[in-house]
């Protein structure tokens, strides 16, 4: 048991914060995200023996999280499309200036409005740090489809950021 614990901790113990961030943006709710991460780790613990390639541990646990989300949490996600509706007060990791904070809030607001098919690959790339090939494998789609979705996701966010910034400037 101790050996299993050590292996578990070494392979995926350090990923809890990234998993939480990913879970938060999937669930759009702090409590659900915490539950999802806990469930993910529990599943991973039970299935640790099935992990053949230890180098793929990160992909493996993100895959578990996505499956657990689809299995238990997706239907519980509150219908949030604006940052103002988020029940959890997002606390940033480092202090930011008011302009930076404004821009970040605009991007967050735009992320909440993104369709899942655009937001998920983007989250896997930015939060998970996965390559296009890895995202394609995770989502079971082609690499070119991933690239298209990433392109469109960023385009939408940039458009929203530019539009909102202009409105801000006009005011």
């Amino acid at each position, binding site marked *: 048991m101790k050996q299993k614990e050590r292996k578990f901790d070494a392979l995926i113990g350090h990923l809890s914060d990234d998993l939480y961030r990913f879970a938060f943006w999937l669930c759009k709710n702090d409590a659900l995200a915490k539950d999802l991460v806990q469930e993910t780790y529990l599943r991973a613990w039970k299935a640790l023996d099935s992990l053949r390639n230890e180098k793929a541990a990160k992909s493996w646990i993100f895959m578990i999280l996505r499956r657990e989300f689809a299995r238990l949490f997706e239907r519980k996600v509150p219908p949030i499309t604006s940052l103002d509706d988020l029940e959890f007060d*997002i606390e940033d990791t480092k202090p930011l200036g008011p302009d*930076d904070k404004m821009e970040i809030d605009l991007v967050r607001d735009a992320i909440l409005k993104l369709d899942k098919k655009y937001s998920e690959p983007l989250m896997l790339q930015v939060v998970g740090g996965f390559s296009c090939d890895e995202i394609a494998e995770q989502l079971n789609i082609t690499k070119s489809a991933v690239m298209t979705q990433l392109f469109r996701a960023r385009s939408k*966010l940039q458009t929203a950021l530019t539009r909102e910034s202009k409105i801000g400037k006009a005011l």
Partner: protein
Amino acid sequence: MNYFEFRQQLLTDSFTKDEEFHRLRKEDIRCAKAYAEAMEFEKTLKNAFNIKAPSNLKDSIILRQSTSHTIERSIKKYAIAATIFLSFLIISSAWYFKQPKTVEQFIIAAIKSESNVLLSQKPIPLNEVKKIFAGYDTAVGDDIGTVRFIHNCHTPGGLGVHMVVATETGLVTIYYMPKTQLEKKRIDFDTNNDKVALVTMKKGSVAIIADTTQQIAAVEPMLQKNLFFL
């Protein structure tokens, strides 16, 4: 790769290791400007996603895992206990339903299993015989005969004694059934090869199983004289 494709790459994956992409980034002014803007955006994007994870997250994960282990262990314990209980219930029921319903059925079942009895080459010492009967508050006289086998056994109503006595004309099986009350004082019946006599005693009853009625006639008075009920 042209400028349009460069911008496309920026929106797809600005951290690509593509050599052509990085060459353009360094050599083309428009590409360098677009890259700098993209990096600014990526920083904002990274910050937008980068929320602080709860400080107690790791503790709650460990707690959930250990709770789950405990619950699993408890479930396993209950499952094992339930399995043992059910097995016991099934075996007990099977044993109960297998038990002969009447003394006669018990005797027939006993005769069938009699071949499994391993007889002693030497007579069982009298004190051994007395010790076993003493367990049923019954004393044994000195003329109980040559006992070749004696053992506690299940009899209708409770435990009793299974004994095989050697007579001049062959072996005779005796069951002392202290908890078995017969409907009559004496019941005689035959099975395929054996003669059986069920005899009411002062305490319970005895079954005498022999090849012939003569053997029964020899053993029965011996038992009447040598079994004393305390």
